[in-house]
Every structure is written in C-alpha cells, then in structure tokens.
C-alpha cells in the first residue's frame, strides 16, 4: 500500500480523505493557501505544504505546485477530492509523467467524459438511454426546426459547452425554435467561446438521479446503486438521498447495468458517477436518460457509503494501488436509507445571499446514533469568499426514509452556527415539507415551493404549546437563579411559576410545575434539564423529543430556534403581563421605501440620481463585500427621492443607500 499520499484539495473533502488514510495507516500531506493556513485539514494532516495566495487559480489549481509538494514530501499518490484539479486530464497526465499515482480514473476516461457531445456518443455506443435529441453539428435554423419537429416538443436547445443554466433555451413549438436558435448560438459563443448547439427533448417533472460506479484496474466494475439529488437551488444540490424513493428494483438494475456498460466503454476504474435525468411523469421504469458522467468522487458520496457500508475513499486508494475490488455485484446491498443536507454559508432570509465571515460559534450535532457530519471547519474558522460556500454535510441513516428524515430534523435543531448566515432553518423546512416527505420531488421543487423566497418554516401542529412550555421552564429557572443572588434582606424569594409567554404575537398563560407544564389550560408532561446560559435545551414533551436553541436577548427574553424557525419570546409575570397591554406596539418603519445595504460593504457605484424613475429589477447600486461586487436592484417601480450613500462609502448591514418617494 502507499506509504504517503497528498490531498490536492481543502475543506471538508480534504478532511474526509485524510480520515480514511489515517484509518488505513497511510501518512497524509495537505496543501494550503494563505486563506487556509489555520484550516482543520492542515492540522489533521501529517505534513502540510504551502502553495500560494488565496485565489484557487493561484494555489489549488496550479498542478506544478501540487507536484512540487509531492516531490518535497515524498508523497506517492494524489487524491484530488472533487472540484479543483479532479477532472483535469492535464493534471492526471502531469502526475503520470512524474511517476506519481493519481487516485482517480484513467486519463482517457476523464477526457472522454469531459466533453458533452463526445460523452453522449459514447453513451449511445454503450447502449445507454440518452435523451431523444440530435447529437452532432446543426448548421442552420431550418435544420434545427427539422430536428425539433422530429424529436417532438417541448425541446431544449443547449450550448454545447454550456453549464449552470447558461446558454439554455426551452422551445414549446417551431416558432420558439426559430426565434431562439441563433440566440443560443450567440450566447454559447459569448459565454464559452463555442457556438455549437444541440437540441434534445425536454423532460417533464425531471428528477436528478445518479448511479455510483466503482471499478478496479482488473476490469471489474460495480454499480453501488443510486442517489437522488433532485432538491436543488439554481442547479446547486441541496439535499441528496440514497436510495431514491422513485426507483424500483427493476429500474435500479437497468440504470446500474447501463452505467456499468458506459464505464466499461472507457475502461473506467476508481469511483465515478453517471448522472441521469429521470422523468417523474414516466412510471414505466424506462424514463431515465444519460446526462453526464463525473469522473471523480461526488460531494454526496456519503449517502452511498451509509447504505452500502463501503468506504469509497478507501476503495479509490486501493484501486489506485492496483488492488482488486473486495466484492461482487451480488454482494452490493441496500441497507436502510440515508439523507444528506448541505449546510451552506448563505442566508435564505436574504435571498440566499452568500455569507462570509467568522464562525463565532460552530457546534455540529454529535456524531452518534447514525448521524455523520463531514466538515472542514471549526469554531473560530473563517468562511472566506475564495472557495465553495459549503460549511458541512449533515448525513443521517435510518432503516426507513421517514426515520432518516426525522433524524435530520433533530440533528438540524442541534446544529449551532453563529457569526454568518446559514441555511439550517431552510434545510429543516425542506425536511418537514409534506411534498418532500412524500418523495414527490423534481429539480424544480425549491423554485416551485418557495417562489417568493424563504421566511422560516411553517410552524407544525402542536409546536407552539411545546415552545411555550420550554420558555416557561427557561423563565422559571432563570428567575430562580436570579433569586439566589447574595445580600438578600428577607432570605431567598419564592420561585415564580406562573408566566405569560408571548411570541409570534400570541400570549400564552403558562404554569410550571414538577415534571409538567400547563399551557393555556392544556397539560404537557416535560422532562428537561436547563441551566442558565445553556445554548441548547433538549426536552421530552409528552414523550416526544424537542431540541431548541436558546439565545438570550438583552431586552427581556430569548430567541428560541427550532424546526426551521426562530421565535422571539418574552416571559412576564402575570401582573406585569397585564400592565404590558398598555404598551403601544411600535410599527417598524416601512423599509420597502429604502434601498438597504444587504451586507457590510463598500459602495462602488450608485447608478441613479434623485428624481430618477426606476423599474423593478433595474440596477441601482453596486456594493462590494469581500471583493465581490453585488448589484442591488429595485424591487418595485418608483421614483428616487434621496440618495444617502455615495460611491466610496463603507456601509453597515441595513444601512440606507437611497430612498424612494412615498407611494
């Protein structure tokens, strides 16, 4: 076996690979940029080599630096992780030229699968279902119309070199094709320097399902079943699971066998993933079509590991060393269900804006009871703008899909992140969403269910009373402790047990007793431990576990967060509650009249002047935060009445940039 390997990556995947290497007794070398000097992967590895400034193009993407690091440390092989150099043939070739093993597939396979048209041709050749369409050069609009008519509408026109939603056009009829074909060509040329376009059938209720394959250098290739990754936001995967609720055993076998056939065509070994688009509207079990093959380890590989019991990184290393796969296709099993949530540094409450900064608090849930956390950060880490915004992958396993999802809900409730915006609440909302729970998902799920963005998860039945009960306990414990201060005139005061708990605009009368709490006349049994200052309270309420994050608010009360939503709670003694009704509810000023700075940053430009009439969507100003330029657009039409900030100003979050006239 290799004595020492280098991991040409960072973050969670570097940590993930190092963990397996350690388990196998292999020494590890990390590489790092300036921005990662204090990152966990550097700390975990036996050795670490500095490879340059923060931008990936000046560090992690420079093959020569990686090779130099190998030579310097005597690493015999390189695991590329995902992203960065993982699918670059030039890198694999350079390693080969330097007699360093590449823990990945053969160069030819990377090259063949890297080209959309080439890979489609290979897929056809291997007998893999491909989306009905035309593979080859389309020379004119007339030709395009002819092809589209042949396939049947709707069809999708795509720039050959495109990706990420750019250079794609949907056509429902011949007219759409005539209008869109040339434009798609132009976009392809402008964005990717390639004006080749292909046309294919548009799949309805599309689901993203992929097959994990694993091969060795001795011609053995297995499929390790499927993963479903349909829950995506702007083509970015958010939730993955294995197996898929849509796939039947027969369909699985068909998909798996086709994936293996494709892998065989290119002489594949190591781990790879064949991505398929599946029509959710087609129940024949035949409605799956080849999309592309990723010739690397996928982000979402843990769910496959959880249901198969295999360590994919270990297998990749063994295969790279020349070992034979330890099992046959018949021995590949599906055990239970696994779900993965990607915890991103982006703020769903602010239109999923990326968030950067310091993780002032970072406490993932404990990795017990089939909860797995793959991360590459710790409390005090910096989430920088230079790399992927993913903070962690939260993976759960259970015998059934429902139980695995429920386990996610509890684990997310226990996941503590402070200092930057994150999507924990949003993920919890997804896990609780009836449509997700029913398995009725498509790649459009998030766009369809959250068309106006996200404002917190729906409050499930019964949660309100439970939260009131938890708040009552917190209030009583805190009050009792306050009454333990020394210097009292008449000895300790009697602990208060009666509270008015108010949140979400509703008042609840709460009476706290021993092992029970009465909320608005309804008795709940409660078992919990709370000490003042505790940040996570775990309570058994009527036999059901609820984990609630607690944050003290200086102004009388707490912010309680659970089940994908925060609640600002106040607790008042009954007499004070009575008096509180005289308080005037202050209406927060209508801020829709203002353009606010969405993040701390520097104003680069203000595009409008006082008196200007703007339309919804019009660019108003540019804010640079962490060297990223963010264009701020008008949410609705209006007339600019005042400009408060000028180019060059440094603004805090929510600072006013400009004002509109009162409607």
């Amino acid at each position, binding site marked *: 076996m290799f004595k020492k390997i280098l991991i040409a990556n960072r973050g969670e995947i570097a940590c993930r690979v190092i963990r397996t290497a350690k388990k196998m007794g292999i020494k590890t070398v990390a590489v790092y940029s300036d921005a990662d000097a204090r990152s966990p992967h550097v700390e975990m590895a036996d050795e670490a080599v500095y490879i340059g400034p923060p931008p990936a193009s000046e560090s992690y993407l420079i093959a020569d630096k990686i090779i130099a690091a190998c030579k310097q440390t005597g690493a015999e092989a390189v695991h590329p992780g995902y992203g960065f150099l993982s699918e670059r043939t030039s890198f694999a070739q350079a390693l080969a030229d330097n007699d360093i093993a590449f823990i990945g597939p053969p160069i030819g396979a990377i090259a063949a699968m890297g080209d959309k048209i080439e890979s489609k041709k290979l897929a056809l050749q291997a007998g893999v279902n491909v989306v009905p369409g035309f593979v080859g050069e389309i020379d004119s609009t007339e030709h395009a119309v002819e092809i589209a008519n042949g396939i049947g509408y709707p069809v999708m026109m795509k720039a050959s070199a495109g990706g990420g939603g750019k250079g794609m056009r949907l056509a429902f009829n011949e007219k759409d094709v005539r209008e869109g074909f040339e434009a798609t060509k132009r976009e392809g040329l402008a964005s990717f320097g390639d004006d080749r376009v292909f046309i294919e059938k548009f799949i309805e209720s599309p689901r993203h399902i992929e097959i994990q394959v694993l091969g060795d250098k001795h011609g053995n290739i297995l499929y390790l079943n499927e993963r479903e990754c349909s829950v995506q936001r702007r083509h970015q995967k958010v939730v993955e699971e294995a197996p898929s609720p849509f796939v039947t055993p027969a369909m699985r076998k068909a998909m798996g066998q086709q994936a293996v056939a494709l892998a065989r065509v290119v002489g594949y070994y190591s781990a790879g993933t064949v991505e398929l688009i599946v029509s959710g509207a087609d129940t024949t079990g035949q409605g799956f079509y080849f999309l592309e093959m990723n010739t690397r380890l996928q982000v979402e590989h843990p769910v496959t590991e959880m249901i198969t019991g295999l360590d994919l990184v270990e297998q990749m290393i063994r295969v790279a060393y020349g070992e034979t796969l330890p099992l046959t296709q018949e021995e590949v099993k599906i055990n239970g269900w696994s779900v993965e949530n990607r915890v991103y540094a982006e703020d769903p409450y602010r239109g999923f804006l990326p968030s950067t900064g310091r993780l002032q608090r970072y406490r993932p849930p404990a990795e017990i009871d089939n909860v797995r956390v793959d991360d590459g950060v710790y409390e005090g880490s910096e989430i920088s703008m230079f790399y992927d915004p993913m903070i962690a992958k939260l993976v759960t396993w259970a015998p059934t899909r429902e139980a695995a999802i429920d386990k996610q809900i509890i684990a997310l409730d226990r996941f503590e992140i402070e200092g930057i915006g994150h999507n924990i609440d949003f993920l919890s909302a997804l896990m609780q969403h009836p449509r997700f729970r029913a398995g009725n998902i498509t790649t459009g799920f998030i766009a369809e269910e959250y068309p106006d963005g996200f404002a917190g998860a729906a409050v499930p039945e019964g949660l309100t009373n439970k939260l009131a009960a938890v708040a009552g306990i917190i209030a009583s414990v805190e009050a009792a402790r*306050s009454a333990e*201060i020394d210097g009292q005139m008449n000895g300790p005061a009697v602990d208060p047990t009666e509270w008015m708990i108010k949140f979400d605009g509703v008042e609840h009368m709460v009476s706290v007793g021993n092992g029970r709490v009465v909320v608005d006349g309804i008795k709940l049994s409660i078992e919990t431990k709370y000490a003042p200052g505790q940040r996570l309270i775990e309570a058994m309420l009527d036999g059901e576990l609820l984990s609630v994050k607690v944050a003290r608010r200086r102004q*009388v009360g707490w912010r309680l967060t659970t089940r994908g939503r925060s609640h600002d709670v106040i607790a008042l003694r009954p007499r004070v509650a009575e008096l509180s009704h005289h308080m005037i509810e202050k209406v927060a000023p209508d801020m829709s009249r203002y353009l606010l700075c969405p993040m701390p940053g520097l104003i680069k430009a203000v595009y409008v002047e006082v008196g200007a009439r703007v339309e919804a969507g019009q660019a108003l100003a540019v804010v640079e935060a962490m060297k990223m330029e963010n264009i701020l657009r008008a949410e609705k039409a209006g007339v600019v009445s005042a400009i408060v900030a000028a180019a060059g100003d440094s603004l805090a979050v929510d600072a006013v940039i400009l004002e509109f006239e009162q409607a």
Partner: protein
Amino acid sequence: MLAILQKLEQKRAAAKLGGGQKRIDAQHSKGKLTARERIEVLLDEGSFEEVDMYVEHNCTDFGIDAEHIPGDGVVTGSGTINGRLVFVFSQDFTVFGGALSERHAQKICKIQDMALKVGAPVIGLNDSGGARIQEGVASLAGYAEVFQRNVLASGVVPQISLIMGPCAGGAVYSPAMTDFIFMVKDSSYMFVTGPEVVKTVTNEVVTQEELGGAVTHTTKSSVADLAFENDIEALLSTRDFFDFLPLSNREHGPTRPTNDPWDRNDASLDTLIPDNANKPYDMHELIRKVVDEADFFEVQPNHAGNIIIGFGRVEGRTVGIVANQPMVLAGCLDINSSKKAARFVRFCDAFDIPIITFVDVPGFLPGTAQEHNGIIKHGAKLLFAYAEATVPKITVITRKAYGGAYDVMSSKHLRGDFNYAWPTAEIAVMGAKGAVEIIFRKEAGNAEALAARTKEYEDRFANPFVAASKGFIDEVIMPHSTRRRIALGLRKLRNKQLENPWKKHDNIPL
C-alpha cells in the same frame, strides 16, 4: 375601631388613585404606566413599602390650594429587587403633571437620606412636567435639596435614573448627577430648554425627540446610557442591571451561582486575531467568551463604539469590562471614547468592581477636530481614572498597544495587577511604518530601504516579548486560556488592599 381601620383603607385607596381615573387613562393611552404600576414592575411582587402617601403640597398661590392630591405627585418608598433592598421614587404625571413642589422634593430627599444612611441604591423614575411654577422659588429650592443629596450619595450608593416622560429644565440635573440614565424611546425626553425656547432664541427648529429624545441622548450626547422600547422593557432591564451592582461602597459586589466553569478554555479565541493586522474583528466575541454564560450587559452601546464598556460576571461575581473595539475607528481613543470609559472606570472603582481591560488600540485619533476640542484633557480623564483606581485591575493586550494609548489602557505602570498579552500583541511606540519614517528620515526617498527597516522594526516590536522582558507584561498567555487566567487573577486579588494618599479629593481634568 373597625371604622377607623376602614377609614385608613379609604384614605389609601384614594391616594393610590393619584390624579384620578381620567388622568390614569390618559397616561395609559400614551403607552405609559402610572407611577405605582412602574414600581410594581420594577420591584419584587408585593415588596414595595410606601412612605409619605398622604403628603400634600403647602402652596396657597394662584388657586392651587383648591386642589390637594395625597402624595403630591411622587410615590416614594422602598422594596426589593431579587430580594435586595432598594429605595425608589416614582414621579406621578397624573398628579399636577408630576411637577416638583417643595413637599414633592421633601419626599424624594427623605428616601435619599434613608438610602444613604442604610447603604442601599436609589432608583428614580422620572416623569415630570418640571417645577411647580405656582410655588416659585420653593420649588427651585426643592430641586437643589435633591441635587445636594445626589452629590453626597454619589460614590456611596449606586443611583440610577429612568427617564419615562418629560424631564426638562432644572429637573435634568438630578438624573445628570446619578450613575446611569436609562430612557424610554418616543415617550421620554430631556433638555435644559425645550424646542419653543430654542426657536425663540436661536431660530432653530427642532422636535422634542431630535433635541432630547432617547435616541439623541444615547447616540450623540451620551447623556443617557441605554434606550428602551417601552416602560416594561426599561423596568425589567433595570432589574437585570441592578443585579450587577453592589448595594453600596461598603459592600462587595453581589455573587450569584453559575454553572459556567471558571477554567473553561475556548479554543476558538486562538483564531480571533485575523492574519492581516489591518483587518478588524469584533471585540464583543472575546468579551462574551470570557464572561459567565456569555452574558454581557453593555452600556452606551450606541455612543463612541470604538470603546466597549459594560458589566459581566466571572464566577458569578460582577466585573466591569472596558475594551477597545477594532471594528469602529480601528479602536482608537478619541474624546468621546475617553470620556465614556473614564466615567465607567470611576464607577467601578467607587463600588469595588474589578476592572477587566481588553486592549487593541492603535493610538489616539489625530486631527484638528480632536485637538481643538481638547483631546488632551479628555484623554487625560481616562488615564487619570485608571491611575487612581485601586480595585483589582486585569489587562489583556490582544493586538495593538501603541504609544500613549498603551500607557492609558490600564498598563502595568498605572498599577495594573495582572497584565497579560496574547502572542499576537504588538507593544510599541507606534506602528512600524510610522516609526521607520521618523527614525530613518534620511532614507525617506528609498522605498526599498524603508521596507527593510519596517520589517526590522516589526520583527523587533510586533510582539509582546520586548515588553515582557522589561516586566511590563506579567505573562504572555494563550488566547484560549483567557477566561481561566482572569478568573484565577480575580481570586488572587479578592483581598487586594491599596490606598491612595489622603486628600480632600483629587482634581481630575474635568
């Protein structure tokens, strides 16, 4: 006998109605509680013992003698907050608009005298139209009697003022002389002369809120320490605040139990200081991670944000915290931050509250605005306050400690008891670049040479070890051990004895 008892009950009931239901309703409709309701919220349930309920005014002019309301516009007495004794007066806007009469003042003075005698804090709830004009100079005399007692009590018992309605003219000076002022947004204001007079005299048009509202006084003028949304929030927060304070200068600060381990390490502090020396970080994070349960009661959060002041606890005991804030003006000292921190340091010293100082200060803010407005004298206030303080003083330098500002921030030379530095500390006369430009003035045109010199200077001084080698730093500590070090230091300093030379009083540069 029974009839007599009933009569007492009737008299009490009448007194409790203050200015009558109509005026009470008017008070409520403004979102304000009555004087007695406020006391109910502030104090432990049922603990209030009122005095002077039947006092009435003694004025006969301008027909005011036709109306006598028992209590005369102020409710006074004592009670407890979490069991600890406190004296309270609460002005009753429903009675003569809470205007201050001679008798009204007498009532306040009585509880001030009592509080001073027994050693318990005074909390004043202010809601008054001003002087009882019908009484003329008698009313002014009343104010002065209150002022005199404010001054005598200063530094002996904590005095807290809540401004919960108008407070104008002479009335402002009693709160001004107390230790802390809390205001209620939108319903309270403080000014020496109101908008009408301002308009007449200076032609300036300004609203009450702009001139002296809670936001104005907690951001611009720093007259007030905190602003609250409403009466309930202000009163309940005052209960929280009270729990940090000793009852008098004769007692130690209070202790209450906590589950937070005294020796809790926090590894994340090891990465608090950014790689880049010019990048700011939030000093609040350090404060929260050091104090018990992350519970920090900040005062004046919206004024002079370049310095942070407030109370926390370590092992359940109150500490005062002063910290430079790199997020605002790079944490420099200027006029406002010096004044803000100086007064806080003196409060802590007066009431035997240990002072923890976190230092990351690049120096004093330069410029004509600062110099012409007297940064020399104002900066001296903070220097003076630290130098005269005899309470336990623990200092932790996290990053920059440059120039005179290093001396000011509770340095060893000002009798700091434990002066720690993180390995990231840079203790020097000034930043390397500036220093090199002065020392090597002759090489000014030579960028390359200057860069080399800068590097040389950095290598020499951009660390805590030069200062440590001279004994100015007691120990260079790991950031993660900061809470443990501070807790241990406080234990060791519990019986600290240090006295300044006898004097009538000092002459701090006011």
